[in-house]
């Protein structure tokens, strides 16, 4: 709900899926107190699917990142983002740590194809999912259509938000191959850019859709 930038905007379905990830960390680092309360209440009403087993010390996990299975040992409280960046060998640093509170989208990854803030997901909750980061979408020599469009339309300046935007839009276009400008804006509302590349992010997303290569 922090992503509702405008009182007139209604919550969209992909927000709800992101909200579920919040359950994993309770209220830790989740922004304003009021919003926290709403989340906790919403979470309490939903059936608890996670097992009640408590974990402590270091736990050994098997993560499927960009099609490669890697074993990693972390404390159970470690977020997926910090696990990718600080523990996995070699480090996966495409997803950026920007706010660590689910407010900016810089750490967006795909879990079974759905965008998620990896700073709000515990690594222990991601073991049975296919994790895709921006590195898994394309390489400098073989960019995907969204990445290509980002370069061609200059949809980046400092580039720190770019992996998050690219990941969000790549996932969105898979489901919505022919979006309107308004739908692209809606899809990007969970991602912040400070340099001010938005107009060209929208252009790039629409151009990528038009290329029909996503």
């Amino acid at each position, binding site marked *: 709900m922090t992503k509702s930038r405008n009182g007139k*905007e209604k919550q969209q379905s992909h927000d709800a899926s992101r909200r579920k990830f919040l359950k994993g960390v309770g209220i830790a680092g989740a922004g304003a107190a009021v919003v926290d309360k709403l989340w906790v209440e919403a979470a309490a009403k939903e059936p608890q699917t996670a097992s009640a087993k408590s974990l402590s010390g270091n736990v050994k996990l098997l993560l499927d990142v960009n099609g490669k299975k890697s074993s990693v040992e972390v404390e159970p409280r470690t977020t997926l983002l910090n696990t990718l960046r600080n523990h996995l060998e070699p480090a996966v640093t495409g997803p950026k740590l920007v706010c660590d509170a689910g407010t900016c989208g810089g750490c967006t990854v795909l879990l079974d194809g759905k965008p998620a803030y990896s700073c709000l997901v515990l690594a222990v909750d991601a073991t049975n999912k296919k994790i895709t980061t921006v*590195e898994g979408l394309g390489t400098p020599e073989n960019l995907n259509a969204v990445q290509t469009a980002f370069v061609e339309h200059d949809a980046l300046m*400092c580039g720190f938000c770019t992996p998050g935007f690219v990941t969000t839009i790549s996932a969105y276009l898979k489901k919505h191959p022919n979006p309107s400008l308004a739908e692209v804006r809606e899809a990007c509302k969970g991602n912040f850019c400070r340099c001010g590349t938005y107009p060209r992010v929208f252009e790039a997303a629409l151009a990528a859709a038009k290329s029909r290569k996503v």
Partner: protein
Amino acid sequence: MQQQQPAPKPKKKVKVTRTVNGIEQEVEIEVDADTGPGWGPNDKHTLLNHPMTRVDGPLKVSGVARYTHDMRLPGMLYGRFLRCPHGHARVQSIDTSAAEKIPGVAAVIQAPLTELRFAGAPVAAVAAKTPEIAADAVRAIVVKYEVLPHVVHARAAIAPNAPKVVQDEKEANLQSKATRGDLSKTEAAFATADVIVEEEYISARVHHACLETHGMVVDYSGGDTATVYASTQGTFTIPKDAAAALELPETAVTAIVQHMGGGFGSKFGIGVEGMLACKLSKQTKTPVKLMLTRHDEFVMAGNRSGSWQKLKGGVKNDGTLVAVQARQYRLGGIGQGSQAGQPYVYRAGESYREIFALHTNEDSSIAMRAPGHPQASFAMESLMDELAHKIKMDPVAFRKKNLADPVYHRQLDRGAKAIGWERRNPIAGGNPGPFKRGMGCAIGTWGGGGNNQCKVDVTITRDGAVTVAVGTQDLGTGTRTFTRAIVAEEFGLQINDVKEEIGNSKLGGANSSGGSTTAASLSPSVKDAAYKARMMFAEKVGPLLDAKPDEITFAGGKVNGKGKSITWKQACAALPAAGITAHGEWRSDLQATGIHGASFAEVEVDVETGLIKPIKMVHVQDGGLPLNRLTLESQINGGMIQSLGMALWEGRVMDADLGMQLNPGFGDYKLPGSLEIPEMIPIIDDDDKREQVIGIAEGCIIPALGAVVNAVFNACGIRVRELPITPDKILMGLMNNQNVA
């Protein structure tokens, strides 16, 4: 070390265009006699002044670009701060024993200061095996504070008996810094005015909010040398202070800045975070990464100073601005703040201003993209709009009447056309229905010239590889791209035929990227090196074509002379075994200073909820020779968006009792987001024919906020004089203003 002074070089005189007092004119300057040609006409370039995609784009869109924050070294420790929770306090004692006992904690050190004058000041730093353990250690530190009185709001800070923010007990929180103009003449001029407006304008302190927080990774494991990866706007601002903190000679430290995630004026030098990172690394003989958390970043990494400006303006009914008087408070916390003097860019018959620093218990403001200018522009443009409204004059016509510089006139006309100014209803709030649209405009100025610091080497080897090397940094402004392009164009090559090496303090010196100085400092040195490399190249290759060096031309990947043509690779094979390297220095004739910008905005105000929706924004920007049209337009967009944020959403909120910031995160500090971005039209003012490079980054952030504020008034008839214009201010204004249609 004493160096022998080289003999003075012979000089020659060249004519260049310069902006003096806002008027472009030809002036003669002296340059070295062996200086190469200028850039040539702006419309005759093959790469420059064209749209070029950025060369590091593919690395950035695929997550491969390695930022400071992405560095992970073997055995590296993670640093973290403990921050002071009080607005003003003295540290009485610190007990770190519990923190030190936590498994995985390698070091706990105290920050240097014991008197802390703002909430968020670093008190201690820890280094641990993981960031999670470091956070545990911070929580385990026990500090006893003597809590002192604080004041965080400007009005309270100038009240009688307010707590002292300044260190010297004899000094006041309000300190006069500068005065200009003649008060009695200004007062006399007001007597000749037909209409006078006297109001107060306030702008909030806003945050750089760089997505990559401040910080460093110190690669030191004992021994004689260290490498420091820094998120900085100044590669060369790092080694000296890092070396001091590591107790190493300056030459032993190398600073690396390959990619950096936003600075906007906030990242120069190692900062307290870098200093503590070095000390943690020194103590543990282990690499340490200390990047601020987002909360740290908000409360201790600097901000744009707020402003509180009491302005009085007088006009005649014909639109002549006869007098302006200003009392300007810079709200820079414990720092000085910044604010351009009034009446800013306007020509007033008489003017008088007094500028003050007004201190509060908040962290010091620091430079932020066009320091002091958006604040001054917002207040002056608001005043101008109020005056125009009172005398029922069109705001564009009123501005032109009080601007001497013809560049502003053409830019205002161009911007008015682009936004569709003829659609503007001259009656404020005059459009029917609850969703009311309105338009506004504003202008701004900046310098953007360069300085003599960049030392560039261009190397061409026998295999045809071309490398341009200089220690500068690319903040996301496209430095890498234009650096390559200048060299490629000189040799008739494609941009990807050239590689650049930057962001390393062991390469040729370069200035810090502040004040829009990078392009105008770096590009002349690159051009100089490229030209000299071309002359050397032509001399070596000439015999292959039976041509003299000055008969050799380069185009389309071919080297031509005397009617013959060979490929680039064939030509390079004739180079000496070591290839050739040419060294370039800055040339003042290849750059200039003095830019203009005009912004227009259209907004829609919902008078039932107070919500403001930006509809369209236009910014016209001059800047001499545009090095890269694509990245330049991106920067203009970015300037407009950051300015829009200041106008409508962004502002630090402080709690008077706790002395703390209430919105130190993106959940509560509202940045412009994808849903609010209007249609944006960045316009490069190609009527600027100066064949010289000028930086534009600051210029394009200045006027847009004034344009937005004025558009809000035109839309709904409510003049909000305190930024940001949140919906409550609109609703309050509507409630108090029954005259609105």
